């Protein structure tokens, strides 16, 4: 930190000023001139929180994608299909059993199993042939998409959040100050989104801990760096591969339930989330969990902000971020060149 300030004094100043301005925008009550030019503070805060929670969802999908890519060099373009399968299964389980929470472990196991089968029967047979694996995953995504369209039809489904997560909750953020009485009005935000954000952070931290503090994590990190050498030193690398693929797939499935709870599930969502994870991983850096979190946050917030303040060009904003990252740092913000 001190080193960074010493080496780049100008950049540090700019970053500190930006962070201060951002904190002021979030915490302070906006003066009337700002409200006149930017709209009410509530809109800004809602867009920001919407972006962060969307980023949390993107992170859950992209984390599995980036982990699988980092370790096995498989660009699994069927990842979006796993997301949608998880969502549909979660819907079925939640409506059949009436328990939203029960859907999570069941979907994690079932979709994880699908991932295990894909890795065991298909991808492991063509190890090292990256392009062929990618083509196979495209074929799988076409087949999955049509099977799901066949079974669940073209209508959109929405998973109902349980009672204790419904309704808004008050956040310690000033939304507005009543001019005549001086009373502070706090921001109210849907509780389920806040809890999903918390859950994503917990999962992210847990993944980081597993990767950096356990033997399994050590094996995975070693495999990302040099899998031949890891295999040569006696590790049964195929079991590590299976575990990572199953975990990544299960995570995508769980993300499907969450996506179905705060948005909706319909054919085409698979490609949408596949593309979101592609962009997140390209921006954040391929194979890096922290990069996926950073990329998801940037893309989620950019998408929501663009949606609120420049509706016609929101997709262009996301794309420009990706293009800028590719132009100046092709390996992604936190990626390493290999």
């Amino acid at each position: 930190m001190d080193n960074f300030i010493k080496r780049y004094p100008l950049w540090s100043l700019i970053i500190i000023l930006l962070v201060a301005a951002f904190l002021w925008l979030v915490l302070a009550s906006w003066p009337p001139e700002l409200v006149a030019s930017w709209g009410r503070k509530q809109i800004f805060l809602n867009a920001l929180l919407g972006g962060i929670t969307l980023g949390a969802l993107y992170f859950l999908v992209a984390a599995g994608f980036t982990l699988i890519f980092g370790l096995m060099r498989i660009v699994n373009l069927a990842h979006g299909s796993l997301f949608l399968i998880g969502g549909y299964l979660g819907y079925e389980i939640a409506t059949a059993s009436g328990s939203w929470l029960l859907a999570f472990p069941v979907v994690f196991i079932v979709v994880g199993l699908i991932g295990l089968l894909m890795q065991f029967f298909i991808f492991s047979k063509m190890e090292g042939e990256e392009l062929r694996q990618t083509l196979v995953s495209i074929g799988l995504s076409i087949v999955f998409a049509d099977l799901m369209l066949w079974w669940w039809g073209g209508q959109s489904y929405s998973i109902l959040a349980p009672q204790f997560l419904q309704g808004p909750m008050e956040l310690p953020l000033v939304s507005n100050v009543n001019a005549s009485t001086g009373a502070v009005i706090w921001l109210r935000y849907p509780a389920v989104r806040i809890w999903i954000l918390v859950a994503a952070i917990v999962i992210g931290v847990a993944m980081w801990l597993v990767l950096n503090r356990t033997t399994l994590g050590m094996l995975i990190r070693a495999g990302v760096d040099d899998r031949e050498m890891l295999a040569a030193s006696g590790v049964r690398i195929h079991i590590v591969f299976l575990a990572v693929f199953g975990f990544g797939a299960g995570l995508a499935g769980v993300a499907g339930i969450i996506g179905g709870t705060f948005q909706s599930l319909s054919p085409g969502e698979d490609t949408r989330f596949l593309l979101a994870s592609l962009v997140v991983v390209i921006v954040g850096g391929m194979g890096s969990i922290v990069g996926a979190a950073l990329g998801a946050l940037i893309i989620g917030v950019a998408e929501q902000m663009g949606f609120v303040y420049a509706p016609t060009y929101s997709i262009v904003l996301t794309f420009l971020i990706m293009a800028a990252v590719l132009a100046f740092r092709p390996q992604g913000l936190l990626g390493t060149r290999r």
Partner: protein
Amino acid sequence: MSVVDQAPRFASPVDQRMWSERIPAPWWIFGLILLLLPIVANDFWLFQVLGWTFILGMIGLSLMFLAGYGGMVSLLQMSIAGMAGYMVAILGPSGAANVSLGLSWWIVLPAAFLIAALFATISGALAVRTDGIYTIMITLAIAAAFFYFTRQNYSVFNGYSGFNLVLPPKLFGVNWRDPLPFYYLSLGCAVLCYGAVVYLARAPFGLALQGVRDNPRRMAALGFNVTAHRVAAYALASVFASTGGILLVWQNAQIAPGTIGVSSAIDVLVVAVVGGMRRPLGPFIGAFIYVLLQVFSTDILGFFGFAADRFKLIIGIGFLAIVLFSPDGVLGLWDRWRAGVAARKAATTGGGA
């Protein structure tokens, strides 16, 4: 996959024959059949089946050029075709009179090719910043961004509804959308594109590109600019894709974001892979199979007792089967069958005597 290990087939330097004599006889027969086909085929076959085959084949050909000779599997080619098609609709006359400029064809066509080439060059320059498997991810992301952009933007791309009534100019008093003229138009364009790729593959640029595909570091050490060759390949491939895209707009008389969606981008890849990405003929064969399956899906699926809308399932399973069992496509199957026949012949005649 084996897209990357084709040895360039040189024309022998001592070959003094005329160019027409170097083309083997089966090709002449095949060409004659294609030329005389309108005598027997009806309008539906000429316009829908074969016209569409040539168009899809040309777009697939641009992917084959990039993937087979350049080692860059780009999912962008449908977007480039769509960009050219959109430009024809935007600059020329169309049903959406408030957006279209209605310029005449001799401005519209060069401009469409130029803008599509510019789009391809810029996207290509972004995509070649990284190489290998990343290309597929980046081009897919760019293709999707273009799709969503055309859907959101109403001032230029007319948003969700797109453009309809985009008709080809009535050049020489011919209505080029009539089945017979359109068949010959698309056949002519396809032959030109095919010939161009065959020529390019043996031209210095094509050989350098194949060198870049096989060993970029060695080529760089020899003084070739690797990045420039790759970006130039994107720009060149855009010409084939644009030709296909413009013909596609004329055939359908309309273009909308759905034409260039992610699934269409993947269809182009399916076409090229199923046909085989090692030779320029592959995409056309793949396109023919794809179009036949699409057009006759009702009958085929009905035969197996499925509903007609399971077309994508058939395509997906067929694609999976090809990728799993014959990575170099239908042409690869054909090559192996011929090699097998030749080996058996050699065995029966006593070792190739």
